């Protein structure tokens, strides 16, 4: 008896789902995921505040004000001021602009490079695949932090600071994405619809772009969302040790680097606690959104 009801349930489920595209299904599942939705709203609010910071705050963040250094939080300066007399609240929002921009831009670059290389390697195969995969292995063997520091030292001053970092990070970290995309494409291209597409005369570019990529897109999106969290950590840790964004640009990592001064660390927690919290909550939210997306795209999970 139980078996029968289960089967009926399953059939009804299939029937009710049959008029939705996989994307619509995933969206529905994602919206039902409370944690992911709260995280997403938090991220959107934070981005909005950061983007609008220059318009809503009437503070000059670059101006050094020696009369107001190291002030504890007050009604005038919500989070206090730092050792150069700059408002910490305003700098946290401005820092969000830079940190989120770097996170987003380098994620996009990495995903683009990784997808192109992975897709070509997986689809074409043979010699080209071998060459591209050796190249990927090669990029993956570089100790990441060490090479970023070296490259950044060379390039700094030649390209505008923030973009140097984005370029350097992207150049060194597309390996993982390329590997994942390649393995997905390898599995997907065995399907008959690909054979059909080739047999009606689709060019390789069209097969990859129109038939293969939409079917591996969910994996790429999940990977990219988790990558963005990594990128924000990379930016802030590099800026923290003084080899990331130029010191005069406010970013969360640059703000935290003030905590390397033990007097600031010990006695003036209002200077370093806001960027700490901003980084932590941003990454936590991105991870939750990523997990939510993973769940939403997984047809086997029925949360």
């Amino acid at each position: 008896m139980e078996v029968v009801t289960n089967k009926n349930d399953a059939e009804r489920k299939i029937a009710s789902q049959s008029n939705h595209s996989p994307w619509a299904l995933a969206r529905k599942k994602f919206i039902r995921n409370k944690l992911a939705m709260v995280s997403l709203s938090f991220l959107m609010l934070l981005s909005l505040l950061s983007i609008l910071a220059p318009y809503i705050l009437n503070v000059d963040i670059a101006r050094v004000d020696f009369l107001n250094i190291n002030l504890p939080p007050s009604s005038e300066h919500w989070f206090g001021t730092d050792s150069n007399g700059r408002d910490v609240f305003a700098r946290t929002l401005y820092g969000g602009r830079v940190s989120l921009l770097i996170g987003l831009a380098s994620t996009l670059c990495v995903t683009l490079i990784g997808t192109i290389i992975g897709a070509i390697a997986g689809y074409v195969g043979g010699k080209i695949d071998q060459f591209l995969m050796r190249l990927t292995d090669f990029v993956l063997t570089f100790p990441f932090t060490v090479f970023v520091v070296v490259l950044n030292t060379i390039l700094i001053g030649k390209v505008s600071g923030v973009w140097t970092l984005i370029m350097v990070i992207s150049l060194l970290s597309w390996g993982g994405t390329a590997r994942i995309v390649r393995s997905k494409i390898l599995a997907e291209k065995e399907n008959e619809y690909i054979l059909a597409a080739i047999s009606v005369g689709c060019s390789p570019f069209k097969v990859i772009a129109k038939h293969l990529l939409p079917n591996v897109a969910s994996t790429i999106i999940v990977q990219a969302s988790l990558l963005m969290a990594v990128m924000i950590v990379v930016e802030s840790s590099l800026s923290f040790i003084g080899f990331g964004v130029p010191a005069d640009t406010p970013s969360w990592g640059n703000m935290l680097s003030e905590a390397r001064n033990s007097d600031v660390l010990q006695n003036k927690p209002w200077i370093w606690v806001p960027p700490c919290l901003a980084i932590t909550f941003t990454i936590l939210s991105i991870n939750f959104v990523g997990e939510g997306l993973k769940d939403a795209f997984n047809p086997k999970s029925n949360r």
Partner: protein
Amino acid sequence: MLQYTIRRLLGMIPMLLLISFVVFTLAKMMPGDPFGGEIDPTRTDPKYIEEMREKLGYNDPIYVQYWRWITKFLQGDFGISTTHKMPASEIIMERIPNTLLLAVTSLVITYVFAFFMGMYAGRKPYTISDHVIAGYNYIALAVPSFVAAIVAIYFFSFKLNLFPYSGSVAIGLQPGTWEYYVSRLHHVALPALVLGLMSTASYTQFLRNDIIENSRKDYVRTARAKGVKESKIYNKHILRNSMIPLVTFLGFDLVTLVSGAVITETIFTYPGLGQLFLQSVATRDYAVVMSITMLLSIFTLLGNLIADLLYGIVDPRIRLE
């Protein structure tokens, strides 16, 4: 197995050659002179500098310079450090034990904590304690280790005064004495705890999921049917199978730890390789920068090899061809 290892080691040679090209090119592109260690900076006479440059081979073609560097490097001659005025190899050798001590201690901490948390969560999945452990892991995954380090220094060094926040040993202790070793452990404890506790997440969740998966398998049902005690099923039958995948993380983890040392060591002003590297970049001490970059790349390759080999050793189902 031996054949596979040898083939992999041989396969590393072209990789290392390519990396050495890249390192050399980068060093040449960096602002300043990469081999200036032997020029006496107090003598500014242009004739002297020109003479030294000629003598050190600055005016040779680039491939001659590369060849000289790489052959010397392979013989263990890393050049002369500009800031320290001594062979780069000596300075690096001085720092390696510190970095290794930190890496090994934090690995041990990670393994011990992940082992117990994973076992507990896997045995009692979907209970409150499982959720608490999962929640901890989410936070540990989200908090970057350098943020955790700042907070840890603030609380444990400044507020509670439990751990020192800089250096690797207290000043004035004689190497070899008991106090010396205790002091070293005391100095390494906080960075190692921060690094170790922040990276338990993947291990714990992996072990937990594996235990849950294994506990539904036939051999567990057989053991239960035989009347084996539940604790024995978990601690012996399942654990042996679930431990396997954990071992394979070791190689990758060593790599992340050593590469990540650059950041941790800077925060704790711990005199290891990473801190030396950053100081050398800042002071344009190229002999040291190049050597450390090469050493860490070699280390990464070896770490990956170890990971692959361990995979084959612990899981006989995987044949390395």
